[in-house]
């Protein structure tokens, strides 16, 4: 447990120090998105990595959080923090309502159902022009503020969002190491045995789906108030796949893995600008290669690889002699 605390403190320290090293600039803006994506990846990991339930439509909850917050503030003039609370509730309630019927499904069928959900929500964002502004977008969303401090610069937003991100990581770590985390992993490994042990698998799956949606919607709201402009393209199928890729690359069932995956997949496109619209192809390729050669994700795969290499060296290469 001690080691867990130390690990988290190192991360928190790193988050504090990085802006001082960068001294502002373009990368700060990218790191804001790393924070948001980390929240989303951790949220999806609770569902996908722990409970073993796929969602190919998680961008929908992110989008609902964003649009709820955006519309309530830009159109109806609500206080951004209040709007965030409403947005979070909206995401959670939708997950509960949708979760009960669709989490009965397993495997491919659940993938299809969540995919459908994502597409429906995406279409609503595009078509409900009166509310969302449709494809041309929604602008004029105010920044969040505390007292006199308005979060209107990259550095301020960085600290705001990473505050939320660190909280998400900490609470998720706690959850992972609790009876709920164990029950989720039990469902993942053998649902029938988990039920025999008294775990109400059906209800727990729905609740974790709702929690995941809650975090995603909060991330969406933060996104809206940081960007101050929304367009449906940010919440489509591609982004849902990107989120799954982050979780898988980092490592299913590893909270720090999701952080790792989010960092990598947010920075990668910045480096791979040359690929332009083909980035989805690159993600797909990464996903395939990862599942083939590192099914445990980077956080488990890299130490295992180092271990294997050093073991070979240690044995002088004649272990089969």
């Amino acid at each position, binding site marked *: 447990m001690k080691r867990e605390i130390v690990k988290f403190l190192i991360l928190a320290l790193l988050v504090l120090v990085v802006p001082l090293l960068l001294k502002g600039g373009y990368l700060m803006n990218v790191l804001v998105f790393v924070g948001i994506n980390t929240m989303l990846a951790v949220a999806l990991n609770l569902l996908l990595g722990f409970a073993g339930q796929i969602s190919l439509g998680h961008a929908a909850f992110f989008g609902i959080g964003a649009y709820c917050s955006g519309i309530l503030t830009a159109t109806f003039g609500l206080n951004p923090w209040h709007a965030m609370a409403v947005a979070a509730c909206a995401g959670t309630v939708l997950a509960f309502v949708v979760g009960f019927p669709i989490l009965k499904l397993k495997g491919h069928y659940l993938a299809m159902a969540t995919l459908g959900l994502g597409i429906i929500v995406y279409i609503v964002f595009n078509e409900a022009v009166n509310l969302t502004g449709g494809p041309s977008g929604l602008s004029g969303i105010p920044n969040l503020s505390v007292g006199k401090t308005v979060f209107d610069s990259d550095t301020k937003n960085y600290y705001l969002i990473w505050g939320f991100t660190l909280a998400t990581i900490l609470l*998720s770590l706690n959850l992972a190491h609790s009876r*709920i985390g*164990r029950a989720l992993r039990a469902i993942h490994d053998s649902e*029938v*045995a988990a039920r*025999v042990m*008294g*775990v109400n698998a059906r209800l727990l799956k729905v609740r974790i789906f709702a929690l995941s949606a809650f975090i995603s919607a909060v991330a969406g709201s933060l996104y809206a108030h940081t960007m101050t402009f929304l367009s449906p393209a940010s919440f489509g199928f591609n982004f849902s796949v990107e989120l799954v890729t982050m979780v898988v690359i980092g490592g299913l069932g590893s909270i720090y893995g999701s952080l790792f995956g989010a960092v990598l997949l947010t920075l990668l496109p910045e480096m791979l600008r040359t690929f332009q619209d083909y980035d989805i192809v690159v993600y797909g390729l990464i996903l395939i290669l990862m599942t083939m050669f590192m099914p445990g994700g980077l956080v488990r795969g890299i130490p295992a690889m180092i271990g294997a290499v050093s073991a070979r060296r240690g044995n002088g290469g004649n272990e089969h002699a």
Partner: protein
Amino acid sequence: MLRLEGITQVFGGIRALEDVSFTVNGGSITGVIGPNGAGKTTLFNVISGLYTLTSGNVYLDDRTITGFPPEKLAPLGVVRTFQNIELFGQMTVLENVMVGLHTKSTSGIIACAFKLPGHLREERIIRERARHWLDFTGIGELAGTVAGSLPFGKGRLLEIARALALEPRIILMDEPAAGLNSRETADLAGLIGRIREAGITVVLVEHDMELVMDICDDILVLNLGRKLAEGTPREIQENPAVIAAYLGEG
């Protein structure tokens, strides 16, 4: 303690169980035997709530538990093990047993996420109790091992430890000796004896006749979905219908 009344289970056109009535006495070890396809595992699946039975009733004491799903039976003290052991393969041995204590703890998502004090106390108790049951089944030294990498015999013991962690009133074991060597089987017989001494009623489906005759107080014989006989091991061994069914089979 556990009473079955006219249990009938139909799958499509197949009558897997037909009008089976039986009573399991509290504190006993009861064996369910019968040739392959007799309906033994089906009977377990019906009692443990995995199948919705076609007709009949299941009572725990005088309370009906007919059609209760497994997660509702667990807090009442009804638990089972599986023929092809169902472990949480990616979790450690200790964590597997800790899941067995799920119903003994109450912290919700919020208490767990915020590490509220009650939750920490509960977590400590869960850990202690889980270790106790690992020692009880004799696999305490494997606590940190990943369950999926256990040899079959140890996996079986882990499944029993996990079930015992619920502190059940009755444990249903589906072929606990299958795949075990003779030494492991002897150890298992000892363990089942100790489970009974702990005040837990045991019901087991088993093919190992020697084991059944050795440790059971009562035996229920099924054949082709119907009750063929019931009685003490001695009565069963001398029952002509049972002898015919077994000899007739092969």
